[in-house]
């Protein structure tokens, strides 16, 4: 390659780089302005006592220290949130997987079932909150009328400290399982028939087929659903804001709700920013642990088994 040709090659390379940057500039600028900048901003604010009205002072790590020492709401909301996340993710994944396995059989009207199961996911959360507030109404709601008709005592549902989180979980499974079912179903349809038939020829039953073939083949999608489910569940806010205002007795004061209350109702921006950073660290750590763990059970075709 001659001197001038190499020079031209480099020039073309730098022109390509420039054009590439131009095309990618929306997301790059977006990351700087809406993600990286605010992350740094959040960290700085969390080290101050800023309350919007007066000038902020540096307080060091006091906002963080307060979370673990004097702030009773923090520990409570963390427990409530983890309780919700675990129950919601486990139930959604189990229920969705079972229904997707059933839908994957040779059945009539699969498309109709799939649409019906998906339908609740379309309902905006505020609207489903209004609806479930009515279904859960202790005096005239459908649920109490049904269980009363069956001879059980009425429940307070959202108005009782011990039943409020399970009630929100039930509503949440109703509202989000559709998405998970459709994704599982697509993965199940990608499982090669000849592998399943091979197990049948060897005399295996459905459980053998599931454990040896289906489960490993759909494990990447199971992992995807698990990850998405965890991240979304951690951010639960709207249902509690609309239906319970975090009550009764803070039993549904979820983490993001606590942060909202601290920042936007009490104007304690420093404390809210500290909560935000703790949330970020927790979700990152959780993501990392999940990725590590996934290596033990997620099977990627093409990678050595």
């Amino acid at each position, binding site marked *: 390659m001659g001197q001038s040709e190499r020079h031209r090659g480099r020039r073309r*390379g730098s022109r390509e*780089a420039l*054009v*590439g940057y131009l*095309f*990618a500039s*929306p*997301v790059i600028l*977006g*990351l700087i*302005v809406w*993600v990286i900048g*605010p*992350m740094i901003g*959040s960290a700085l*604010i969390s080290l101050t006592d800023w309350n919007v009205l007066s000038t902020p002072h540096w307080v060091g790590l006091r906002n963080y220290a307060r979370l673990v020492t004097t702030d009773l709401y923090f520990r409570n909301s963390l427990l409530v949130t983890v309780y919700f996340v675990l129950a919601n993710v486990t139930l959604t994944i189990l229920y969705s997987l079972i*229904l997707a396995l*059933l839908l994957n059989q040779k*059945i009539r009207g699969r498309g109709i079932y799939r*649409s019906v199961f*998906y*339908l*609740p996911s*379309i*309902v*905006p*959360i*505020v*609207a489903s*909150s*209004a*609806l479930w*507030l*009515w*279904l859960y*109404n202790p005096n*005239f709601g*459908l649920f109490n*009328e049904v269980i009363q008709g069956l001879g059980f005592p009425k429940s307070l549902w959202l108005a009782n400290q011990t039943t409020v989180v399970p009630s929100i979980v039930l509503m949440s499974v*109703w509202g989000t399982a559709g*998405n998970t079912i*459709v*994704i599982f179903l*697509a*993965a199940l349809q990608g499982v090669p028939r000849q592998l399943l038939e091979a197990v049948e020829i060897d005399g295996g039953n459905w459980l053998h087929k599931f454990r040896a073939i289906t489960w490993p083949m759909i494990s*990447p*999608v199971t992992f995807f*659903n698990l990850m998405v489910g965890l*991240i979304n569940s951690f*951010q639960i*806010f*709207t249902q509690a*804001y609309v239906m319970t205002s975090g009550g009764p007795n803070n039993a549904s004061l979820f983490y993001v709700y606590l942060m909202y209350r601290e*920042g936007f109702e009490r104007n304690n921006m420093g404390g*809210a*920013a500290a909560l*935000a*950073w703790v*949330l*970020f660290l927790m979700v990152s750590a959780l993501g990392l642990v999940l990725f590590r763990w996934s290596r033990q059970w997620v099977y990627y075709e093409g990678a050595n088994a």
Partner: protein
Amino acid sequence: MTAARTAQRGLLYLILSAGAVACLVPIFWLVRSSLMTLVEVFKYPPLLWASRTRWENFATALTTAPFLLYFRNTLIIVIPTVLATLVTSSMSAYGLARFRFPLRNFWFSMVLGAIILPPAVVLIPQFILWTKVHLVNTFYPLILPFWFGGGAFNVFLLRQFFLTIPKDFDDAARIDGAGYFRIYAQILLPFIQPALIAVGLFQFFFQWNDFFGPLIYLNDPKTYTLALGLTHFIGSYSTQWNFLMAATVIVILPPIVVFFVGQRYFVEGVTLTGIKM
């Protein structure tokens, strides 16, 4: 077919139907309650349907709160957001998928990180920024950010799709004299059309449902979206369940119509997102 097999099929349909009923009963109850008088709503044992279907409940709900204004506000936010997302996420994805440039891998890993970043983490500085430029109580905080790639997940998804198209198409077009922009707009975009439709639909539903953003940025009732307006309606009409349910029907009707119209693309889109991860 043996008896055991028939029983098995029966059980299969029974469980599926039970699941379907569980999905539909709340929605049925919503519609049923929205068409009753208040007295009928409170009857025990509960009525299955109103003695006379009260369509006028919708008119009452629409006039008690300015839902048409909320509807308009929601559209003013949703339409430019979806447009912004389609244009800028596909552009960014094309840049990340087809060009080599310094720090490209760094920016791509930032995109991946941003996908799992809970929006609440960056909320406070963003809110302060919008307060400083005096744009709280306008629609800008809810629209403008989407002109910057339209969400990390969409950029990631479309990049994966661009990568599945062989580069020979670009090269052939280049030999024919097409520039980078022509290649993007006329050669590659048609290939990823199903993914684009899915991204547009998801963004529509996301915006229609968004509650946190409007709650933070819109305090003036004249700027309320449907989701926000319904929340305030719940606060003031929490005992008039028939009107509240009518208002709820009004809020969920548009997304349900969009769902049934775009259903094919929708299921396809959900499928694609799951598989591409």
